[in-house]
Each structure stands twice: as structure tokens, then as C-alpha cells.
């Protein structure tokens, strides 16, 4: 409100009526307020307060008051009479002006009211209407014409009057604003100057406070609350800075008054717009810190509420309260204990009441987050007050407490008049709460629940639980353990699920206290066990809790009732180890399980019993149905158990997500081991599924070692158990060995673990990952293997018999019956001992072997089940003597004969023989068939050599084994022809045959009458490994057959030099004479076979000769081949002349001359040239009509001609009708000129000349 001072001359009543209109009309229209220092212009409504002018009201020099400052002086006049003006009015105006000038108030305006009535009244002195105004303007407004305004007919409702009103209002607003801006600027400048003086001694904050607050008031009046708030905030900050500086050692004198001991703690007062009481105190410099802060805040609160920002009030309030407490501490102001609590409590409630007063319920509910801090703070403070005044204890307050209460209440003073009639005022609440234990409890619970509700509503569950915990502590003090436990459990749940170990320990300890009070033995023991293993506690405390458990356990009494607790709190199963490691034993064998338990107790604990229950599964004879996962798990016979949260530090259960454990399961057919089905199995579905459930509802955390209260776990009484009695667990790792039952074959799965200590049982409900062991039953098994590789045929070899007894116990008299075979006799070994094994040598016993004609019986020594019996036998594999290619064997019907057959082995050059053994065992009605593979150490080849009519047989023997042999008594014999004599040309009787070396042996065949066509020969030799005595010699036989032995033809070639030459010359034609002579009379078979009767009665056969030079030494001129007809009589000769030309000089070998048997075609078939017959010789007369086929096709075929047997029917048919060539067997044709050479001279002499020239 602007003070406008008025001075009027004329009708005062009229003026007064005009003021009211003016005061109403002035704020109607907003004005744009342009501000200094670049602040944004604002539209403001100006309001004015009209005050009668009095000289003494004019501001004195140095007046700081802005509120009462006269911004504009108005002089009213309705004078329309020049005389009157001149006479009195002007003088009056002058006086007015002078007094204004003396007080430096340059803002004024003169309003001249004109009315027709006045004019009419003063008819006599009619002057031009404007004259008075002009006069005034001339007298006073020398340059400011706008300082004189005319108001016409103000009381009439004419347009003229309206117009003049409007212009007057506009003028007034403008002038007023101008003056205001000018004065405000001056004021602000002054204020700043004052502020800059704050470092000077004697500067007073309170004084400055009043000045700046003046500014704030002005802004508030102008409805500029924002600006007003800024003023208070600046003051706030300035004061805060001083307090901080004080803390830093920079003391201002004026702060002294604020350091006075606090005497009043009545809390904030927010119901008055301005708390004049406190303001006066500040003005007088008597205010305490709390007073100043309270006043400042109440003003800020008022402005914020004007600004519709109630939530900022709550935030600032909280900040203020915290800050005040800190500041008092910093300034070391002495405060009665609890006084600040009272002040804070009252203030909190006052702020909340104030906010409730200006907001509706819905708004409040939606903005809990802003108020909840105050609620919680108030709760906190009330609680500490209650503790201070002895209202929380079970017994009630002592007299000392009561005295303290009285002191505290005294500091509250009287209730403020504003709230005297309110039933729920903070003052009344506090007074009531401190008056009695019951009232305190009621109020405290109200507040706590309100705070908790609000925290819950806005989702601050942790904060809610913390309030709950505080409430629990209250209940504990009151001895109400049951309610306390509920709150504690809820809090514990959240700490556990989020893995905050320290709060967990603390809360759990409180719970233990509750449970003890409530007598909930089982829960208490569980919690105690948890605490005993809690590393956050001191050893003494852990021992205490451990003792609690042990004391209960050791209490004499009813043994049938046992308390079952979760094992995880007591001890951890860290490792499980099987001995033997493969975790698979035969039935009845000893299997030990070693458990590694980490005992979490601080002291050693004696266990009555430790037991592991077993689930037994019979394997349905399907031993293949074993998952790979299981095999992997028990690979080393050790299962490591991943530890719970205790090992991983603070990690909560929710962070430990078990990984998926997948196993492959294959189901194979028991008969042929073929795959029936395969599947993937998840082994830990129960964990994963449960985890999923719990994560969806966060209220139930998964079952972990850290759990609040392990669910009661029942030990399933299994039929079979691993047990150990009376063990003492030391703190830390313990190793306990259990013996596992293994009577029945099957799979044993360890399910639970249970530790019994007196009345207390600790149970591990699931052993995870699952642990199992297998007990199997094994069939007896007999195997035979060579003692040394390879087994050589023909020599005695040692073989090892191994008998795995399995479930069968070998009794006395049990014997193995070996069926004898001719090809492999069994010899008793020199060492007739059987060894019994069971991992290590158990025993040795003599073996008795009895051989009869058909069987060899080996009596076994008595052997317990699941032992290994080993003995050795000597066997000999007789080398089959037949040649490797027995033509009859395959051709008969293609069936393989059931005698040992040698075959070539891919790994070794030696031919192999598989030898079967059939053994009858006492445990089975079936014979056991075993196979041994022997290798023949030799390879043999034979060949027939001829020299004219004389015949030689050569045998080639190669040692293909790795052993060196001595060879003796090499012999060759003929089976059929007695007249035949084979004369050995071998010199040595004994010779060395080294590994990978060969020996050639030669015999000459001599005969008396006729040399038979076919010879059946047997090569025999004795051999023994090198350096063994004569007795070790073993025979080796080699049978073979030689066919077409006699020489039929001899071929003799001669080369004649050209006529007149002594020697052949290269490039000159020579004559080649081939002489073919029949040496023997034809045998009968031959006659029948392929001869024909010539026209002159002589038997002839057709031969084909061919001269071929493979090495291009000779050029054959003319016919190189041809057929000759040979009479089938001894000494029949046929000569052929051929011209050949040597191509080189030197000793040239004779061209090769081949003689072949010529078989003419069958005349019945059509004759056509056939490219397949590969005869391109033109001399060969294919159309020879005299040719007569006498051989029948079958016999030709049987002889195995070059046109092979295996060709198809069509081909056979065709070939049989074609003329064919058939080679002679190697011994049938003897070539005299084989490898004979002839000297060929160089062609001409110029050759020599050429040499001379060069």
C-alpha cells in the first residue's frame, strides 16, 4: 500500500467521497512495472492508502521505512474562482510545496476538480474555465504540465466525467509507479550499502534484517511473493553463512545474542501471517537462534503457501529442523537435554498441521512422500523423549525422570492463543504424551504406524521396515516380545534377501532375544545356531549362542522328542569323496564315503550320530542306462558342493541363480546295444522351479543358509543309512569316513544328511548336486591273450588265461575243459602256477592240467568272487602245409572249409591264422569260444627251371617275421612218382635265416623212363629260433604242384651276316634262322587234346612263332611272325628264315622269339575279323579251310586260357570260335638262344673318316 498524502482546499466532503472511488478504481488496471538492474518487467496492480497530510508525517532524513513512505502528494482543489485562488489557494499551495521540498519529496500532483455546480454558483466571476488550471500550471508546473490534472464533474455519470476519471487514474498510476520505482531503487541501494558494511564492527544482523524485511513486505504487498521470498532466503543464507563462519572460527559480535542458552522450545508457529512477538524480539536484538529461525521460517512458509507450494514447505521444514539442531551444536548453545527434541517434535507437527490446513485429504495422500519425512522425524524425536523421560521402560518413570519431564514442559511455555481451543494441537499432544506411560505409548504408536503406512504407500519399504525395527525395539523395552518379533522378522527378511550381513546379524540377535523371552525353543535354537556360526559376532558371543544350543541338547529328559534344525546353520557339507574313487563296487565290497564338513560352530561339538540316508534303486539289468552326467560327477570320486552365501561374502540368495544342469540319457536295447531312445534330463528342476516361484513373489525368499527360520525339516527314516557314531566336530573342516552298504546290486543315491546332538538334530534335507554310487554284480569272464605279440605259428607260444571270477566263487574241483583240436595242441606250461589277484597279488597255487584225447582239463584253485585268476599255457599252431593257392578249394562250391585258413593281415607281411578254442566253464552250460591269431613266419615260392631236357626245381623261402631262425634238413620229395629222383644241389644242412631275409634251395629232377607231366612236391624244413637246441626244431612243410613239366620244343636261333660279310653290320640286313625242334614223343593227353591229323597221316600241331624286339635293337623286315605246323613226333624240326636288320653296332642280344600254341577256330561259326583277337599279322590265314577244330570247347576252357574264365557267356562263346593263342608253360619250351649275343659292326667306313677329319 502506498501512502499518499493529501491536502485539500474546498469541499472536504466531496473530496472524501472521491478518495473512496479513487482507492477502488486505482488497482483495477494493471501497470507495467519496469525494474532496474535488468530484472524482468512485471504487471502490477497498484493499491493506495490515502492519508491526510500532516507535516510531522513527512519522512525524516535517514528514514528507512518504505512501508509508510509517502510516495505521492496530492493537492486537491475545487477552486474555480480566480480571486479565491489568488487570495488563499495559491499561498496554501506554495506552503505545501515548500514543506515538500524541505523533506525531499519531489512527487506530487495537483488535482483540480471542476463541476458545473461550482460554475453556476460563481456566476459572478466567470472566467474562462481553463484559467485556474492554467494559472496553477503556470505557477507550479513550470516544466511538468502533467502534474496538474483536471477532474470534471466527478459525481456525475456522464461520458465527460468518465473520461476525466480515466485520465486521472492513468496519471495517478503512472506517477505513483514512477515514484515507487525511484524510491524502491534508492531503498535497495541503501540496503546494499548497509549489507556491505557487515564486516565492520558494530554491524547488527537484526538491524539489517529489519531493513530487508521491509523490502519483503513491500513485495508482498505488491503480491510479488516470489520477490518477497527471495528477500527472506537471502537473509536465511546470510545468517547461515555467519553461523558457518562462526564454526570456522570467524566470530561476529552480534552472534552473541544468538548463543544465549535456549530457554523456550515452543516450536514453530505458522498460524500467524507475521509473528509480531518474535519480530519485536528480533528488532530489539533479544531473539534467540530458535526464535530467529522460527520467525524466518514462518514468513517463508506464509509466502510459499501464497505461492501454492505447500510441499516445498515440508522439505524446507525438514531441512530447517536438521539445520537448527546442527547450528545449535555448532554455536555450542547450551540446551536442556530433550529440549531440542521437544522443539523438533512440536515443529514437525506444526508444519504438518499447517499443510493439512491448506490442502485437502486427497492432495495429502498423494504427496505422502513430502510429509513422511516429518512424520518419521517426529516419531523419532518422540521416541527419544520417551526414553529420556522413562516412559518406555517397563517400570515407568522414576522421580528423576519426572523432574526432567517437568523441566521440559516448562520450556514449552503457555499454549499459543491460536490453538488453545484446538483439541489436537501439537502442544497438547506433547504435553499429553509426556504425562503418562499409556498416553506416550498411544501417541508413539500412532505416529509410528502413520509413518510406516506412508512409507509403505510410497513404496519405501526399507524405510518402513526401519521404522518397524525401531518400533520393535520399543516393544522389546516394554517386554512385548511377540509384537517385536513380527517387526524384526519382516525387517530381517528384507536384509537377508538383499544380503546385508551386518543388519542381518544385528536383527537376528534381537530376534533371538525375543524368541528366548517367548519360550519358542525350536526357533530360538535355530536362531542361536545361526548366530553361533555368524562371523560378524565376537567369539564370546558365538560361544554363548553355541552353548545355548548345546545346553538344550544335553538336557536330560524325554529323548523321543527331538528338535530338528536345518544343518546349513551348523555345518556345511563341502566335499564328498568316494573310496575307491570310481564309486562303483561289486556287491559286498567295501565302499567308503568321506565327507568333508565345515563346522561353523566356534567350539568343538560332540555328535552322537551322523547319518546319511540313502535311496536305493535297482538297476533293471540295464547297466547302460547311466547318464553321462553322473559319470562325470563321480569321475574323480569327489563331489564338490558349491557353498551358499556364507562363502561368497555378502551375496544374497536372490543373486545366486543355479545353472541349468542337463544330462544326456541314452536308452539302449539290452540285446544288440542299439539306441532305443535318447533324452535330455534337467537334474535340478526342483531348484529352478522353486526359485522361479519365489522370485515372482518377493515376500518369500528362497531357502538358503541365511534364511530367517529354516522350515522344519523332517529326517526321512530310510531303510538304509550310512552311519557313524560319536564323532567330534572341530571348528573348521572335518573329515568323516562312513562305510556305505553294498549288499544288493543297484544304485544308491545319498539323499539327506542328519547330525544328532542330544535332543537336537541338524538335517540337510537335500544333498545337492546329487551323489550316488553303484553296486554291481558281474558275470565271470574268461579271456585269453598272447604273452607276447605276435603269436608265431609253428612254434610253441605262451598264452595267458585270465579269469575274472565276478560273482562266481571258484570251488575246489572246478575245472576248465578245453576241447582239443588237431591244429592247435595245448602243452602244459613249464610254470604251472596260477596267480590270484585282487588289485594286488593275493595268492599263488599250483595248477594241475590233465590232457586226454579230446579235452584238456585244467583244474582251478579255489578263488573267492571278484578276484582275478591268471595262468599261462603253451600252445602250438600247426602251419597248414598246403600251398597258399589251393585251386580246388575255391572251385568246388565256394564254401569256406571249416579248418583254420590263413589270410593276409593288413598290419603285417605275415599271413595270419585264426585259431578258435572252445572251453567249457563250470559256471555256464555254454562253451566259451575264444580266438587266437597266429602268424606264419615264412613265405614260400617255387619255380621250375629247365635246361634243354633237364629240369630243376627251385624253392624260395623268406622269413617274414622279426625272429631269426636256424633252418635245417631242407628236403624236397615227390609224392607219386617213385622212379623220380630229386637230387639236392644244396650244400649246407643247417643255415641261418635272418629276419626279412630269404633262402633259395635247388633240386635237379632226374627220371628213368618218362618225365611225368605233373609233379606233386613237398618241401620240408626244420626250423627253430636262433640259438636254441636241436629239440626245439619244428617242421615246416610246403606243398606244391608242378604241371606240364617236360620240355616239348627247343627253339634255336641263329643270325647270319649278309653274304660276303664276316660280321653283321648295323643297317645291313641279316638272316635270322629259327629252328624249332620237337623233343619228345607226344604224350597221350596231348594227342587227344590239340593235335590234328595231317593229310599224310602224320599228327601235327600248329605253333605260332613271333620275333619281337622289345629294346629296338633290331628291325624285323617282312614277316615277324607266322604259324608253323609241327608234326607230333620227336625230333621233328621246322626252320623259319626271317630277315632282320641290326640298328646299332655292338654285341646285341638276339631278338626275342616267342613260341605260342595256335588254336584254330571252330569252322561252324561265321568267320569275321575280330579286333579283340589282337592278331594283326596278315600272314595268319584266318580263312584256312583246312583248319579243323578238334579240341572241344570245354577242355579249352578248363585249361584256363588267356581268355579268362571269368568273362561272360557271350564272350566265351565268341572266343571259343575264334582262333586263339595259348602260351606254353615255362618248362615246355626251351630257348637255346636265350640271352645269346651277336657282334654287330658299325655300318660304314666314312664313320672312321669322319673321326680322322676331326
Amino acid at each position, binding site marked *: 500500500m502506498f501512502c499518499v498524502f493529501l491536502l485539500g482546499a474546498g469541499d472536504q466532503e466531496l473530496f472524501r467521497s472521491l478518495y473512496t472511488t479513487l482507492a477502488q478504481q486505482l488497482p483495477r488496471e494493471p501497470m507495467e512495472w519496469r525494474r532496474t538492474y535488468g530484472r524482468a518487467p512485471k504487471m502490477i496492480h497498484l493499491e493506495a492508502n490515502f492519508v491526510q497530510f500532516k507535516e510531522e508525517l513527512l519522512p525524516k532524513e535517514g528514514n528507512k521505512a518504505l512501508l509508510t513512505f509517502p510516495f505521492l502528494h496530492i493537492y486537491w482543489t475545487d477552486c474555480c474562482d480566480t480571486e479565491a485562488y489568488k487570495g488563499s489557494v495559491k499561498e496554501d499551495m506554495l506552503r505545501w510545496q515548500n514543506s515538500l521540498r524541505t523533506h525531499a519529496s519531489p512527487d506530487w500532483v495537483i488535482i483540480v476538480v471542476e463541476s458545473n455546480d461550482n460554475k453556476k454558483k460563481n456566476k459572478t466571476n466567470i472566467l474562462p474555465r481553463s484559467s485556474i488550471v492554467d494559472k496553477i500550471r503556470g505557477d507550479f508546473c513550470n516544466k511538468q504540465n502533467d502534474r496538474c490534472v483536471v477532474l470534471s464533474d466527478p459525481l456525475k455519470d456522464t461520458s465527460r466525467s468518465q473520461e476525466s476519471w480515466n485520465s486521472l487514474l492513468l496519471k495517478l498510476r503512472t506517477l505513483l509507479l514512477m515514484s515507487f520505482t525511484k524510491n524502491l531503487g534508492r531503498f535497495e541501494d541503501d540496503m546494499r550499502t548497509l549489507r556491505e558494511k557487515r564486516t565492520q564492527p558494530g554491524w547488527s544482523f537484526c538491524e539489517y534484517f529489519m531493513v530487508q524485511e521491509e523490502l519483503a513486505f513491500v513485495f508482498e504487498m505488491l503480491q510479488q511473493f516470489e520477490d518477497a521470498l527471495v528477500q527472506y532466503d537471502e537473509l536465511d543464507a546470510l545468517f547461515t553463512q555467519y553461523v558457518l563462519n562462526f564454526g570456522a572460527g570467524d566470530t561476529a559480535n552480534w552472534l552473541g545474542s544468538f548463543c544465549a542458552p535456549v530457554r523456550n522450545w515452543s516450536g514453530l508457529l505458522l498460524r500467524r501471517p507475521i509473528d509480531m512477538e518474535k519480530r519485536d524480539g528480533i528488532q530489539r536484538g533479544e531473539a534467540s537462534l530458535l526464535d530467529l529461525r522460527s520467525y524466518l521460517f514462518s514468513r517463508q512458509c506464509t509466502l510459499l503457501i501464497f505461492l501454492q507450494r505447500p510441499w516445498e514447505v515440508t522439505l524446507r521444514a525438514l531441512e530447517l529442523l536438521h539445520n537448527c539442531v546442527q547450528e545449535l551444536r555448532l554455536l555450542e548453545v547450551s540446551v536442556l537435554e530433550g529440549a531440542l527434541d521437544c522443539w523438533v517434535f512440536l515443529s514437525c507437527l506444526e508444519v504438518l498441521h499447517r499443510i493439512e490446513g491448506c490442502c485437502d485429504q486427497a492432495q495429502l495422500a498423494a504427496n505422502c512422500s513430502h510429509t513422511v519425512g516429518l512424520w518419521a522425524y517426529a516419531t523419532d524425536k518422540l521416541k527419544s523423549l520417551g526414553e529420556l523421560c522413562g516412559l518406555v521402560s517397563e517400570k515407568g518413570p522414576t522421580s528423576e525422570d519426572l523432574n526432567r519431564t517437568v523441566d521440559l514442559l516448562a520450556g514449552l511455555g503457555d499454549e499459543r492463543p491460536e490453538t488453545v481451543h484446538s483439541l489436537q494441537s501439537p502442544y497438547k499432544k506433547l504435553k499429553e504424551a509426556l504425562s503418562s506411560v499409556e498416553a506416550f505409548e498411544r501417541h508413539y504408536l500412532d505416529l509410528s504406524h502413520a509413518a510406516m503406512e506412508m512409507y509403505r504407500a510410497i*513404496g519405501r519399504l526399507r524405510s518402513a521396515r526401519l521404522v518397524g525395527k525401531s518400533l520393535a525395539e520399543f516393544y522389546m523395552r516394554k517386554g512385548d516380545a511377540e509384537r517385536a518379533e513380527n517387526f524384526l522378522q519382516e525387517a530381517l527378511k528384507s536384509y537377508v534377501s*538383499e544380503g546385508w550381513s*551386518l543388519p542381518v*546379524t544385528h536383527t537376528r540377535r534381537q530376534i533371538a532375544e525375543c524368541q528366548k523371552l517367548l519360550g519358542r525353543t525350536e526357533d530360538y535354537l535355530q536362531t542361536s545356531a545361526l548366530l553361533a556360526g555368524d562371523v560378524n559376532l565376537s567369539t564370546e558371543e558365538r560361544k554363548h549362542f553355541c552353548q545355548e544350543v548345546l545346553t538344550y541338547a544335553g538336557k536330560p529328559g524325554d529323548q523321543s522328542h527331538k528338535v530338528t534344525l536345518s544343518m546349513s546353520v551348523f555345518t556345511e557339507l563341502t566335499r564328498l569323496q568316494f573310496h575307491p574313487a570310481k564309486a562303483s563296487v561289486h556287491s559286498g565290497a567295501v565302499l567308503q564315503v568321506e565327507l568333508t564338513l565345515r563346522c561353523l560352530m566356534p567350539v568343538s561339538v560332540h555328535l552322537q550320530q551322523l547319518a546319511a540316508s540313502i535311496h536305493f534303486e535297482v538297476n533293471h539289468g540295464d547297466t547302460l542306462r547311466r547318464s553321462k552326467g553322473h559319470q562325470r560327477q563321480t569321475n574323480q570320486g569327489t563331489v564338490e558342493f558349491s557353498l551358499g552365501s556364507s562363502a561368497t561374502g*555378502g551375496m544374497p540368495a536372490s543373486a545366486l541363480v543355479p545353472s541349468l544342469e542337463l544330462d544326456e540319457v541314452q536308452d539302449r536295447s539290452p540285446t544288440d546295444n542299439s539306441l532305443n531312445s535318447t533324452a535330455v534330463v534337467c537334474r535340478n528342476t526342483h531348484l529352478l522351479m522353486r526359485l522361479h516361484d519365489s522370485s515372482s513373489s518377493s515376500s518369500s525368499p528362497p531357502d538358503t543358509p541365511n534364511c530367517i527360520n529354516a522350515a522344519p525339516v523332517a529326517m526321512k527314516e530310510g531303510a538304509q543309512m550310512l552311519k557313524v557314531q560319536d564323532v567330534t566336530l572341530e571348528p573348521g573342516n572335518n573329515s568323516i569316513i562312513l562305510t556305505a552298504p553294498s549288499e544288493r546290486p543297484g544304485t544308491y543315491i545319498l539323499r539327506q544328511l542328519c547330525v544328532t546332538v542330544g535332543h537336537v538334530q541338524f538335517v540337510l534335507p537335500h544333498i545337492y548336486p546329487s551323489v550316488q554310487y553303484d553296486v554291481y554284480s558281474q558275470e565271470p569272464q574268461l579271456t585269453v591273450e598272447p604273452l607276447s605279440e605276435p603269436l608265431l605259428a609253428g612254434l610253441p607260444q605262451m598264452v595267458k588265461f585270465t579269469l575274472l571270477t565276478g560273482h562266481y566263487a571258484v570251488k575246489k574241483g572246478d575245472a576248465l575243459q578245453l576241447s582239443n583240436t588237431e591244429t592247435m595242441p595245448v602243452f602244459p606250461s613249464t610254470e604251472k602256477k596260477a596267480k590270484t589277484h585282487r588289485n594286488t597279488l593275493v595268492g599263488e597255487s599250483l595248477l594241475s592240467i590233465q590232457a586226454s584225447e579230446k579235452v584238456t582239463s585244467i583244474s582251478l584253485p579255489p578263488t573267492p568272487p571278484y578276484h582275478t585268476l591268471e595262468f599261462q599255457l603253451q600252445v602250438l599252431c600247426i602251419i597248414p602245409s598246403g600251398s597258399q593257392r589251393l585251386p580246388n578249394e575255391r572251385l568246388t562250391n565256394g564254401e569256406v572249409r571249416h579248418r583254420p585258413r590263413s589270410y593276409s593281415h593288413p598290419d603285417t607281411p605275415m599271413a595270419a591264422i585264426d585259431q578258435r578254442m572252445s572251453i567249457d566253464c563250470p559256471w555256464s552250460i555254454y562253451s566259451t569260444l575264444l580266438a587266437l591269431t597266429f602268424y606264419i613266419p615264412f613265405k614260400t615260392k617255387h619255380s621250375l627251371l629247365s635246361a634243354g631236357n633237364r629240369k630243376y626245381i627251385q624253392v624260395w623261402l623268406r622269413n617274414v617275421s622279426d625272429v631269426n631262425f636256424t633252418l635245417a634238413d631242407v628236403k624236397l620229395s615227390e609224392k607219386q612218382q617213385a622212379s623220380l629222383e630229386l637230387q639236392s644241389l644244396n650244400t649246407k644242412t643247417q643255415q641261418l635265416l635272418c629276419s626279412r631275409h630269404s633262402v633259395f634251395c635247388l633240386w635237379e629232377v632226374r627220371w628213368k623212363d618218362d618225365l611225368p607231366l605233373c609233379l606233386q612236391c613237398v618241401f620240408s624244413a626244420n626250423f627253430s629260433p636262433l640259438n636254441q637246441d636241436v629239440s626245439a626244431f619244428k617242421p615246416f612243410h610246403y606243398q606244391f604242384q608242378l604241371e606240364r613239366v617236360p620240355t616239348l620244343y627247343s627253339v634255336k636261333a641263329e643270325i647270319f651276316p649278309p653274304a660276303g660279310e664276316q660280321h653283321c653290320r648295323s643297317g645291313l640286313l641279316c638272316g635270322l634262322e629259327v629252328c624249332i625242334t620237337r623233343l619228345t614223343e607226344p604224350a597221350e593227353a596231348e594227342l587227344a587234346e590239340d593235335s590234328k591229323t595231317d593229310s599224310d597221316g602224320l599228327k601235327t600241331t600248329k605253333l605260332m612263332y613271333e620275333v619281337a624286339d622289345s629294346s629296338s635293337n633290331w628291325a624285323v623286315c617282312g614277316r615277324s611272325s607266322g604259324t608253323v605246323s609241327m608234326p607230333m613226333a620227336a625230333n621233328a624240326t621246322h626252320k623259319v628264315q626271317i630277315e632282320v636288320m641290326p640298328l646299332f653296332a655292338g654285341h646285341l642280344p638276339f631278338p626275342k622269339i616267342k613260341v605260342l600254341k595256335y588254336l584254330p577256330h571252330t569252322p561252324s561259326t561265321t568267320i569275321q575279323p575280330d579286333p579283340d583277337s589282337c592278331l594283326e599279322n596278315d600272314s595268319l590265314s584266318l580263312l584256312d579251310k583246312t583248319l579243323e577244330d578238334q579240341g572241344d570247347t570245354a577242355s579249352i576252357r578248363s585249361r584256363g586260357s588267356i581268355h579268362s574264365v571269368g568273362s561272360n557267356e557271350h564272350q566265351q562263346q565268341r572266343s571259343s570260335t575264334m582262333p586263339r593263342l595259348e602260351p606254353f608253360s615255362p618248362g615246355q619250351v626251351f630257348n637255346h638262344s636265350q640271352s645269346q649275343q651277336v657282334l654287330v659292326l658299325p655300318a660304314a667306313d666314312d664313320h672312321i673318316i669322319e673321326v680322322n677329319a676331326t
Partner: protein
Amino acid sequence: MFGDSIRKCLAGLQGTQTWRVGIAVIAKENYPLYIRSVASQSELKFHYTVHTSLDVVEEKISAVGKSLGDQRELYLGLLYPTEDYKVYGYVTNSKVKFVIVVDSSNTSLRDNEIRSMFRKLHNSFTDVMCNPFHNPGDPIQSKAFDGIVSGMMVQTG
């Protein structure tokens, strides 16, 4: 990790000893990865305070997440003041929270300094995470990180 100190503080929680500064790193799942305070007497209270502050951290994260999406500021500012201390929060992009608790009487610390403390903490934390031998999710047991935290405590304390 939390040492022997709890023994004392469990004995008397009501004591009003304050810590001068405390630093905590909290995993995404809200369990502590690292927690350390200067004055060990009130370690338990410090734990409770940090745990409770997660309420406000979560509130702030969700509020920011709604409005700005990815463009969020990691520094959460003052989470809440209490009579004795101020709690500041910071959250990494992987939702790991840093909480610094400063004694209210420590007026020399400005917002900017707190910010830079958080940044330093974050850098060091990143180094820890880059260690191939560190299993993310395990409590931090790094000497380098310890050193950084100790340095900050000395500086602020």
C-alpha cells in the same frame, strides 16, 4: 569384510557417535559390494542408513527413467538429509549404486566436490570391473579401489 568392529557396535547401537564419511557400492540386486565408513563405532548404523537410502535411490531412478529415458544423469544428488548426516547417491548405467554419506557438520563439502568424488569412485569401480579375474557380482576386494576410497575419506574427513 566387515571386520571386528561390529562387536562393539552391536553392544551399543544407541550411541550417537557419527561417522565422518562413509562410502558404499551396492550391486544392481541391492546387496553391498563394498561398504566402508571411517568411524567404525557406528558401522552398523551406517549399514542401516545406506540400506534405507536405497528406497530413495530406487525412487529417483524410476522417476528419471520415466521422464528422460537414456539421457539420465548418473548423479542423483542429495538423497535425503537427516539430523546427523547427508546421503548422496549415484547410479551407474548398469544400475550399480554408489552412496556417499557425509556428516552434516561437514559443511565444507559442496555439491561439485561430491560429484567429483562419485566420478572418481566410478572410474575406479570401472577399473575393478575390467579386471579379468574379478567376477562381476562378487564383493570388491581391490587394493586400488581401497586406496581411492581411503584417499577420499582422508580428503573429506
